[in-house]
């Protein structure tokens, strides 16, 4: 594998270079460039900024949008029970998407990946029931399935390497062979097109308990306090990290700043205490607003205490036209979002639905399509850069039309069976967020000319968020729109306000400084981790206190239970290992290299063929894992199990940012892609009145948008450096 002569020996390369004095250095070396990460030509990118140009960003945005969309529309989506449901659906997808993504990064495809999950499940069923007449212990069956999978994976890889044929063709052949064998064997041995009673076989119960355990999670009264604490601390750490990264530190702490921070913190605490006691709409709104203001004051105070204050620069300029235009459009968008509830009245569902049937529905769909066209044209043109040539224009037009059609298709499919609530939520979400985004965009443009405009427009953006929050609160009936969304929006407004004030008052840092940068990175990561842990607890448990649960049991009422299946943990484990191997080990390096430039990889001693064959085996083994979990979970395997799933795995990987031609991609992104697939499957079922088949139109749209975002990001990643 490794060429010993080529390896630089196992000793530490840094020590080597130190002990290896360069004879002469007449080359024009610039001394300041010698320390990695301290180059004055590079502005520091925090984890947030760097992550914004990472391959998985499209999938992340997609996950958030889909989640928010379903959360806003589904009656039950977003509660702990449904979250565990879609995680359970996502897990086999996620396991396979991880492996398929690795293979795609390595430059190959495997069309037998889907049927592999079914075939291995079938092998387990058949061997455990019929081998040697009466079947064998299930552990042997699983072992046989894994061995068979490894052999098929190796054979796929070996053929691809030896013949040099496209992996599409080779694995398509395997796909058909497996598909045929599954049917033939199941009919021959089980006399049916399915094998059932797998979990009744010898050892199956114990094995299932071990491999595919199900935990019933109930009764955790502390759920919400823990969730809130984690989120509050996490967000605070994150904000502090962002401040540390954005601004230049001052020599000593500013007492004024500390005073302001103390004032803000006391105000925040008092506000929360008051909120807890107040009742009634106006009191809640007033106290909530005051609390948010206190939060902003606290953040500003902390900012002032530690970072360098800015001197007056005396630059004055009129508001640039660009910024003015954007502010105008942004305000219009927000205003429309706020006016939207008027025609779509929630109390008159039927009435509204009838007047949409009479010709308004196509009009609405076409309008949605046009918005899609305009938005995609804008983004594509920006992606193409300033010089839009004839060929570029054609591409632009085609892309826009396609995107428009997609959006229209989604709109139509939704309009057919949607509720008025859903329409309003979509409209408000789109218009409101577009409006605020435009205003924030204007803030950046105007701030370059005169920082006072930055402050003014920032205050405006924050006000817009508050207005949307108030409208949502006043209008909606569901708790999520009455409480959760307005609270989030108002807190967001507070942060935007604080950010605008701080950028006005403090000196921005443009160069990398190792100490604060390291601190910033750690704080941001710790903050995100806390938020994730808090959210996980929130989503895993029901919030019945033991007392409530006992009372329900005593009254013979069912106590809601959440089922966490081990499958989900297997997914996390596989994705975690995959991501780690890809980022941190030499095998990951080799996977990127064989996908990016196979000849180059081979020339420097990477065992390219073995890496590729290994990746095929990994895909097959992950298929066997997924197959085992499926067999144990349902106890029945259909002969067509898994057929067609290979494309969904590929979609998950592509949505996750993997380049179809290899050499670039992300395992985390693929897992997020799997989450999107699963959410749209289960989510559409939770929304009453929605046709579950609408998910295909929806998925098409998601795939297109994610790929567009990914392409754009990749371009940015390449030029931003």
């Amino acid at each position, binding site marked *: 594998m*490794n*060429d*010993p*002569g*080529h*390896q*630089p*020996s*196992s*000793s*530490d*390369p*840094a020590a*080597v*270079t130190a*002990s*290896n*004095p*360069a*004879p*002469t*250095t*007449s*080359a*024009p*070396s*610039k001394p300041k*460039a*010698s*320390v*990695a*990460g301290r*180059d004055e*030509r*590079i502005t520091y990118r925090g984890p947030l900024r760097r992550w914004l140009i990472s391959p998985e960003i499209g999938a992340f945005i997609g996950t958030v949008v889909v989640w928010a969309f379903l959360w806003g529309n589904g009656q039950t989506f977003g509660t702990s029970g449904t979250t565990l449901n879609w995680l359970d659906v996502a897990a086999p997808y996620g396991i396979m998407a991880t492996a398929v993504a690795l293979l795609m990064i390595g430059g190959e495809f495997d069309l037998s990946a889907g049927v592999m999950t079914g075939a291995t499940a079938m092998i387990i069923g058949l061997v455990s029931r019929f081998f040697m007449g009466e079947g064998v212990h299930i552990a042997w069956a699983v072992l046989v399935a894994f061995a068979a999978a490894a052999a098929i994976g190796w054979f796929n890889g070996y053929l691809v390497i030896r013949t040099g044929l496209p992996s599409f063709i080779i694995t398509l052949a395997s796909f058909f062979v497996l598909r045929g064998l599954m049917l033939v064997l199941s009919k021959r041995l089980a006399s049916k097109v399915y094998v059932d009673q797998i979990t009744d076989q010898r050892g199956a119960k114990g094995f299932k308990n071990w491999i595919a355990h199900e935990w019933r999670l109930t009764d955790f009264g502390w759920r919400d306090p823990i969730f809130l604490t984690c989120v509050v601390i996490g967000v605070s750490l994150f904000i502090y990290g962002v401040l540390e990264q954005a601004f230049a530190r001052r020599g000593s702490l500013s007492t004024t700043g500390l005073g302001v921070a103390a004032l803000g913190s006391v105000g925040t605490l008092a506000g929360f205490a008051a909120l807890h006691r107040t009742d009634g709409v106006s009191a809640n709104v007033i106290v909530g607003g005051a609390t948010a203001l206190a939060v902003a004051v606290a953040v500003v105070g902390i900012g002032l205490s530690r970072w360098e204050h800015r001197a007056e620069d005396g630059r004055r300029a009129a508001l640039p036209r660009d910024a003015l235009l954007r502010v105008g459009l942004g305000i219009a968008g927000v205003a429309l979002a706020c006016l939207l509830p008027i025609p779509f009245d929630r109390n008159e569902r039927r009435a509204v639905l009838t007047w949409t049937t009479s010709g308004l529905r196509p009009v609405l769909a076409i309008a949605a399509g046009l918005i899609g066209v305009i938005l995609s044209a804008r983004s594509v043109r920006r992606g193409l850069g300033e010089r839009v040539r004839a060929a570029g224009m054609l591409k632009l037009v085609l892309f826009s039309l396609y995107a428009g059609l997609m959006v229209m298709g989604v709109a139509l499919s939704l309009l057919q069976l949607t509720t008025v609530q859903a329409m309003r939520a979509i409209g408000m979400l789109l218009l409101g967020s577009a409006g605020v985004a435009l205003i924030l965009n204007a803030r950046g443009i105007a701030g370059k000319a005169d920082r006072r405009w930055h402050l003014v427009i920032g205050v405006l953006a924050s006000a817009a968020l508050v207005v949307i929050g108030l409208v949502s609160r006043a209008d909606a009936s569901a708790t999520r729109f009455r409480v959760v969304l307005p609270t989030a929006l108002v807190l967001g407004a507070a942060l935007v306000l604080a950010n605008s004030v701080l950028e006005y008052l403090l000196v921005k840092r443009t160069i990398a400084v190792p100490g604060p940068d390291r601190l910033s990175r750690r704080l941001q990561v710790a903050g995100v981790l806390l938020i994730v842990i808090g959210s996980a607890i929130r989503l895993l448990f029901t919030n019945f206190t033991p007392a409530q649960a006992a009372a329900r049991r005593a009254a013979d009422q069912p106590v809601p239970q959440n089922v966490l299946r081990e499958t989900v943990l297997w997914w996390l484990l596989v994705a975690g290992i995959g991501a780690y191997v890809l980022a*941190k*080990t*030499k095998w990951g*390096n*080799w996977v*990127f*290299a064989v*996908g*990016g*430039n196979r*000849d*180059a*990889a081979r*020339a*420097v*001693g*990477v065992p390219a063929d073995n890496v590729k064959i290994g990746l095929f085996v990994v895909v097959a083994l992950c298929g066997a894992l997924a197959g085992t979990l499926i067999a144990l979970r349902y106890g029945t395997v259909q002969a067509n199990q898994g057929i067609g799933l290979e494309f969904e795995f590929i979609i998950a990987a592509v949505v996750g940012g993997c*380049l179809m031609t290899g*050499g*670039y991609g992300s395992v985390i992104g693929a897992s997020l892609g799997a989450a999107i697939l699963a959410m749209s499957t289960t989510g559409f079922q939770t929304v009453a009145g929605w046709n579950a088949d609408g998910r295909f139109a929806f998925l098409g749209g998601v795939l297109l948008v994610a790929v567009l975002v990914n392409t754009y990001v990749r371009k940015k*990643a*390449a*030029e931003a*450096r």
Partner: protein
Amino acid sequence: MNTTQNSTHNSAENSDTPLLELRSISKHFGNVIALEDISTSVQASEVTCVLGDNGAGKSTFIKILSGLHRASSGEYLIDGAPVSFDSPRDARARGIATVYQDLAMAPLMSVWRNFFLGAEPMRNGVVMKSSEMRQTAKDEMAKMGIDVRDIDQPVGTLSGGERQSVAIARAVFYGARVLILDEPTSALGVRQSGVVLRYVRAAAERGLGVVFITHNPHHAYPVGDRFLLLNRGRSLGDFTKSEIGRDELTRLMAGGAELDALEHELATR
């Protein structure tokens, strides 16, 4: 990292024995004579330029040097001792590194990942020492005078000259004593070529012997110490810099006697 240390020692001590020497090398493929009676040498800290037009035998010459082919006759000496390579791996083990024209780089991978590709320093045999790798890659390239702004940037975003430079720096770091550069400037513009030529010189000044293959005498002359001219598999001569001027080199490359004959022919018409 014994090879690196030895290489610098050796080159300092025995400066009169050439690092690499070829004596009357010939290569026949069946009845095709690819190379016939080629002799030259590569000294430490010197650049030996191999010049020749298309079909002159440059690629065969590289393949013999890098161990891909074995010479049909003649002697291949390293440090004065004859060697016989079975594979490029053997040649690499003896410190002969070849940087091919198409470069051994994956364009979407970062500079540091490319720099260590195939020889990643590992902790416990599993985890890459990524921060050290970043630092080392940056330092090594700085030593060569290559100033990479961001070691995390994908190699594909570097210019052609910078990419060549990364490949050269990598070969130097991995203990190369003799660096064989296959037409490193052929695909580059004027300025980019200048960048690469500077690194060729920098590599020589770090004590390496450099074999610089090119068809462009204007690129060869400023950096070269010794010039081997090939034409249709035969040597037109092996000159030191003091023996040949730029004009003569250009004339020989441009066809030399044949060109004279052509000129004569055109003049008499």
